[in-house]
């Protein structure tokens, strides 16, 4: 798992005929690192995550993990390299939490066979790790938003991939669960996994990311470490509002200023 690198090289993607949704995107991420994909609604973050996951095929199809092109291997091989926590977590899944998390083992189970003891052991460990043990027998549809997110992270976790993509893992979560989601991502990175997550909140990127990619209208405006990327100038350009960066104890905090929109 260590030493692998996720690389996206100069890819573009278009939903329609002429209208490019993503233009010339490159990024790279190593195991143990956290990359935050930051940008306003419609800037192409979710599309980019689907490309990184191999769900959408870009042009040129150049997404590699440890030198293996995700578009040249089977779905199963791909699912052993990179896992997904989607943004819209379907509530309406008629499965118990333990069965839901067990689905993360799908790429390791051959089509006509059943989960092994190892698969079940890994699921039990993951449920414990993410504090979901007491919910194991509950239906997924009965969980709260934060619990569903954790269960989805646990499902991606048991996939056992070197890289994980989390699309807005803190969306719709309360204050405490937001922090919990950030903490979980940090722990996953400490275990050596490469984490790519999208967010609307620059503070989350500052808090945990090793590198930040700031997207704007389907292109990468700037990328680098959080200090380089997150400043008044870039954020004001991307979001069109006045922001203020307050520094305290060596850390930057981004605060938007209400009522001070920049006229376009």
């Amino acid at each position, binding site marked *: 798992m260590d030493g692998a690198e996720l690389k996206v090289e100069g890819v573009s993607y278009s939903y329609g005929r002429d209208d490019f949704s993503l233009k010339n995107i490159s990024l790279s991420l190593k195991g143990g690192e956290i990359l935050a994909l930051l940008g306003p609604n419609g800037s192409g973050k979710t599309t980019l995550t*689907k490309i990184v*996951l*191999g*769900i959408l095929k870009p042009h040129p199809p150049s997404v590699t993990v440890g030198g293996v092109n995700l578009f040249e291997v*089977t*779905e*199963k*091989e*791909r*699912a*052993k390299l990179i*896992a*997904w926590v*989607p943004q819209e977590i*379907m*509530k*309406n*899944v*008629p*499965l*118990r939490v333990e*069965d839901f998390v067990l*689905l*993360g083992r*799908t*790429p390791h*189970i051959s*089509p*006509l066979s*059943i*989960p092994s003891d190892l698969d079940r052991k890994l699921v039990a460990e993951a449920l414990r790790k993410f504090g979901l043990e007491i919910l194991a027998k509950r*239906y997924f*549809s*009965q969980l709260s938003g934060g619990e569903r997110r954790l269960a989805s992270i646990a499902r991606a976790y048991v*996939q056992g991939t070197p890289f994980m993509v989390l699309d807005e893992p803190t969306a719709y979560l309360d204050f405490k669960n937001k922090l919990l989601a950030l903490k979980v991502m940090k722990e996953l990175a400490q275990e050596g996994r490469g984490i790519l997550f999208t967010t609307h909140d620059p503070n989350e990127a500052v808090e945990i990311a090793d590198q930040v990619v700031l997207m704007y209208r389907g292109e990468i405006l700037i990328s680098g470490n959080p200090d380089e990327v997150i400043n008044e100038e870039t954020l004001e350009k991307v979001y069109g509002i006045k922001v203020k960066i307050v520094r305290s104890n060596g850390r930057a905090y981004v605060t938007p200023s209400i009522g001070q929109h920049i006229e376009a």
Partner: protein
Amino acid sequence: MKEDGKIAIAAVATFFIFIITLGMGKYEFSPIGSLKILIESLAGKAPNGDPLANIVLQIRLPRVLAALLVGASLSVSGAGFQALFRNPLVSPDILGVLAGAGFGASLAILLNFPLPFVQAVAFGIGLAALGLSYTVAWRGGGARIVDLVLSGIIIGSLFKSLMSLVKFLADPESKLPQITYWLMGGLASSSWGDVEILALISVPSIAMLYLLRWRLDAFMLGEEEAKALGIKVEFYKAAVIVLSTLPAAASTVVAGLVGWIGLVIPHMARMIFGDSNRFTVPGSAIIGGAFLLVVDTISRAVLPSELPLEVLTSFVGVPFFAYLLRRRVYHGWS
């Protein structure tokens, strides 16, 4: 595990129902008597001398087996489609297959075909309806679920119209009643040939769906997530559709249009055994088989004259379903 135990109990109970119903009818046997005849015939001892045993083996046994298999086929078919379409309201006729088979049978009866040809035409046009639905929905290397639902409704309605046209053209004195009775469904004329059709088409399909039960669970997450979990989505979608269609088409060929079971039995199985397809698929097969066997036995051995299955399945099934619905909190699909 608890659920596996429940399924085992249901399977044993279904076996007892099978033995008991085999002994029911004009000539009654005790369950032990039926069991004895069964074991003797399995051991290769032809009970030719015993006329009663012959009744059981040649007339009643195929009907009892056909009821078990048709019930299991329609229920598993419904379970497969419901998982794939992530929709609890889907039934085996979602892709127009049953309407196609119904039209095929009506047409063949109108044209005076002998029974095996009626069945073959029904089966063939049923599968052709599936092919049409798939073709209409197919674009860019795949068929989206929502497009399949729409194309299935359209193709289904086309074949229903064609079926009406055939009825309209049929002689109201002779052909029309024949077509109508065939479509209403029944097992009264079940033969060993029908059991063979079901054994060759339904049983392997049900077995394959059972083996794919874990893949079916992944489909309940939606196609993109299934893909991210490493599933060849289009391949398995097509596989599940074909494997769910074959038993339903075979059932229609043998028993006519038996509605209701394919929609409702999978829900009963979920309420009793749990929502994961590893329970729903075998549970639907067992409950569906036992249910139709009981219903058909009531029609055959209890009532003064036989009623169409379409009528009786609702009469027996609705109170049972209402009981389950009121007794259990149903969480799965909220």
